[in-house]
């Protein structure tokens, strides 16, 4: 009997303790609250496409919140031939340049004047080769945001890479655009025109940076996942996915490579420790005045794919369907107001020119 007691105490109690092991070893920290504000961030993308070229100028704010747009900057595009093209201030720190696109025989730089200080990027040229993307999508039921399975949309791209012997570096940006139709309340007699449709834009899985170094692989056909998202009532209407392939230079590739490392660190033993990332923009008079961001000149190619309700294998409820007798204020606020629906996402009421589907 004594030996039996020893056995119970000595073996089974530890086993039960093991079964009660706490499973998660990740906890939120509050000790890194000493954040810094006021650091200048400049980002510009200049491509060879006929599109509006955009530069964002902002400053960081404390507590790690979204940076604030700088509205009083003067932004100019420079060429190595001495040309200067002024960007138009579109508000909220966005500066736009129309009717200008990158050409292979020129080199470009960005100059930003803020608070009396001049910040200038190095001169960059546009790469000459780019690949060809072919998109596909799939719906599945699998764990995504946590261990519980849910309805998931996945976008993939098959890319034919250039067979050029020149080194090339690729980056992809995947944007989603979905249609949103507000609740249409029937009326009799003279009625105001119906609300225009909303188009809501977002980056698909922003933390997924798809990068490819053509100098490190002999692959010429690339298959990669461009992003995933949960399936929600956005898929009730046509839903477009825009994949922009950018052929960038080595400096920009290394910059995005560092960004990729930082936003995907998981805290494991093998993580590369984080560090400040500085790009190709600097204060022309004070090298100690550090600037965040990058000015990249890229060859670009855009590919799109869309889904309709018919593609979705899950049951979806029309989100803003008018129901007689239901009080108007009991509809979701997003069914009355596009801004409410979009939240922090970009939106407008203009049909994109590429919004065409069967």
């Amino acid at each position: 009997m004594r030996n039996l007691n020893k056995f119970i105490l000595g073996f089974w109690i530890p086993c039960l303790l093991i079964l009660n092991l706490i499973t998660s070893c990740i906890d939120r920290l509050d000790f890194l609250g000493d954040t810094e504000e006021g650091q200048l961030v400049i980002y510009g993308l200049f491509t060879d496409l006929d599109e509006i070229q955009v530069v964002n100028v902002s400053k960081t704010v404390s507590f790690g919140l979204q940076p604030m747009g700088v509205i009083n900057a003067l932004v100019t595009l420079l060429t190595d031939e001495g040309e200067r093209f002024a960007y138009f201030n579109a508000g909220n720190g966005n500066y736009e340049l129309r009717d200008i696109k990158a050409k292979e025989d020129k080199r470009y730089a960005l100059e930003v004047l803020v608070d009396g200080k001049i910040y200038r990027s190095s001169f960059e040229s546009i790469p000459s080769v780019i690949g060809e993307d072919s998109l596909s999508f799939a719906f599945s039921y699998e764990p995504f945001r946590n261990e519980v399975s849910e309805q998931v949309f996945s976008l993939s791209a098959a890319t034919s890479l250039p067979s050029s012997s020149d080194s090339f570096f690729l980056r992809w940006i995947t944007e989603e655009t979905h249609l949103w139709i507000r609740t249409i309340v029937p009326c009799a007699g003279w009625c105001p025109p119906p609300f225009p449709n909303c188009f809501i834009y977002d980056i698909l899985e922003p933390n997924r940076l798809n990068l490819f170094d053509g100098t490190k692989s002999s692959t010429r056909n690339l298959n990669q996942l461009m992003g995933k998202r949960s399936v929600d009532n956005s898929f009730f209407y046509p839903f477009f996915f825009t994949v922009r392939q950018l052929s960038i230079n080595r400096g920009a590739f290394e910059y995005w490579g560092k960004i990729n490392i930082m936003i995907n660190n998981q805290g494991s033993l093998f993580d590369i420790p984080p560090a400040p990332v500085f790009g190709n923009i600097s204060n022309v008079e004070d090298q100690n005045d550090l600037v965040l961001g990058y000015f990249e000149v890229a060859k670009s190619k855009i590919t799109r794919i869309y889904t309709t309700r018919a593609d979705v294998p899950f049951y979806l409820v029309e989100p803003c369907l008018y129901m007689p007798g239901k009080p108007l204020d009991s509809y979701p606020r997003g069914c009355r107001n596009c801004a409410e629906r979009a939240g922090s996402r970009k939106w407008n009421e203009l049909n994109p020119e590429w919004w065409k589907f069967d």
Partner: protein
Amino acid sequence: MLNPNTFSCLKAKINLKEIGKKRLPFLLYLLWYLNILTFQTVKGQTELIEVSFHQEISKKRAQYYLTGKVSHVKTKEPISGVSIHIDGYFKGNNTDNNGQFFISLDSGIHRIVFRQFGKSPAHYQVELFGDGQLDLALDNLDFELETFVLEAEERDRNIRSPITGVTKMNIENIKLVPAFLGEPDVFNVLQSMPGVTSVGEGSAGMNIRGGQADQNLIMMNETIVLSNSHALGFLSPFNGDAVQNFTLYKGSVPSYFGGRSSSALNIEMRKGNKEKWIGSGSLGTAVSKLIVEGPIVPEKTSMILVSRLSNANWLLDKANDLDVQNSNIRFHDIYLGINHQFSENSSLDFNLLNTGDYFSFSDQFGFEWDNIVGSLTSRNLLTGNFSLVGMIAYGSFNNGFFEPTQLDPSKIENGLHYFQGKVSGLLTLEKMDISFGGEAIQYQMRPEGLSPLTSESGIAPKTVQKENGIEYAPFISVNWNPNENIAISGGLRYSNYVQQGPDSIYRYEEGIPISRINITRVDFIESGKIVKYNGFEPRFSFRWTFDEVSSIKAGYSVMNQYLQTISNATGPTPIDLWQLSTTYILPQRSHNASLGYFRNFKDDEWSTSLEGFYRTTGNQLEYRDFAEFFVNPHIETELIQGEGLAYGTELLIQRNKGGITGWLAYTYSRSLIRTTSEFSEIQVNRGNWYATNFDKPHNISLVTNFHLGKGRTFNTNVNYSTGRPVTGLLSNYTIGGVFIPNFGNRNEFRIPNYFRIDISYLTNGFVRKWEDKINFSVYNLTGRRNAYSVFFQREGTNQRLVPFQISILGSAFPSITYTVSFGK
């Protein structure tokens, strides 16, 4: 022998027989806890062995020599470091590495006691009227006593030993420190001693007196062991059941050790039993072990085989996380030791250590590495006071890192092998012993290869040739005890290093930082010398004992290091690359100074010490931001060198005997570095001093052993340390929809402080007729989630990045090991 039935007590007289032994441990503990009882043992009858040596009357002299050898009564192995007390005094005489002693005494009758920690002392009455040889054997101390006694030599060793900053311990003590999985582990014990820390959980990567993990010379029987990461870093490769003892030199390293700039750790492995075959088997919750030892040729040749095998996968299956469930961990280690005694004065030892590890995390990534170290050592006593030891060794390890689910599944492999040879002589004189010799190590790095893991992978196979080099050094060391109160130890080592071909030497554009984009040409050198470095390494240590119980010690040493690991991970990893010095990577050179005050109390029942140290290191390696180390033919472009600075104080309070033993260690230390490039753009933190990854100013360890009698002990280990530095987040910003963290200076912030309690209970088994034992231990009893590292992630749908801490062990980790011995 001590009589456990009689104690003198300051406030009460206790008759143990009346109380009954069963209740004794609890009662004694209670009295001790209430601070109303102190112990003082009363010596009983001592067995005195009388021997006499006589000379012809015509050759009579005033002094005679007494020589001899001390060995273990069971294993017959010589015991080094046995203190020899003559007529009640200890004058610094110890047995040498071969167990030999040589002393000169006045003619007459002397009372001589041979003592060593963990051994029963041997008491002799010697009639010395002629030169004599006295060979004797010591047995292990019987720990079945109600009290545990750290024997005299060990108790006052801190006062008497000439070298400062030495930590020495044998397996009996190692087993008393609670450990992960209940496995007695040298590294685990060391981390509870002052001046020794680690960046994470487990045993990987000891940082000794502010030094990097690769600045420690780790040896098994003086054979270099380079690959020390085992069982994901939770265990050292040295199975505690095969360890005899260890010695850590963290202050002044003797000149017969070299090649690292911080410390030297020599782990002596056990030799097999020479009389009969014995063994034991253990089954644990995560590890199983088998030990077999015995005579191949009785009294001549013995062997010991100790193996350890993991069975931890069932623990992973219990996790809720699918990725953890799909992970796989395997490891093993095998130690084989063969000893052959040609004669009383000549022996040959063969040692072989093999470890293997495999770990895959779900189907995302994995590692595998193996390590083998073998040595052949010949020990010869040529004359009564001169011995010669020769050793040749071979070491090899291979590392692999694979990523099965990447865009292009790939595998990276690297490794190195090395040959080591060492010859050392030891001349023992009356007040001095002189050791001298030479050591050479040839390193041959294996080519590093990147290969596709599957046939569909687009990875282009790539191989990078790595360096070869040879390091050699003559050395001499002298220990001199001019009188009882003073001991001086001095030494000199002249280390040389030659990088040998073949290798490709990249040449870079001058006037700008070297990088892969400013390579101007490549010179290929087929063979011969590429670059050579050398330097004198003086070593000095001094001890002044100004009374029976206190002494002051000081030490100074210079050490060069030609082989180092390079890594940009937060801590040591199994796949850290070893890197030889090259044209661009200059050898490290450290200057170490230490000063200590040692004092014992109450007849050496308590030992205390207060030590300070200061070290500067030149050419300490750091990684550049976002360095890429793997398959990089010009690794120097990812590195930057600088100067290191470490300083601190260490306090140790140790109780050596009684029902409760243990120690309290407190260390205050800083470890800083600054890069010293002439180019500001690659300077880390703009060339300012900053904390190293392992800078943890405050460290406290409390180890307590409750000796409950009949082989039962209850042990606790409490650890607290300042959180280590990390690079933290200053702000967030957005580019093209991507929310990007903006990090501050390297190691500007700190993770939360570390706190952990471990307990273990060692007891006899439950089968009366077996010699069985149970080790029940709980690692991290309070289940505290100690941060190992910090990472930044979005929280839910919020774009803002917030810091999270990751803990390697997020809960209490209990384990139980059942061991059955046979043949004893």
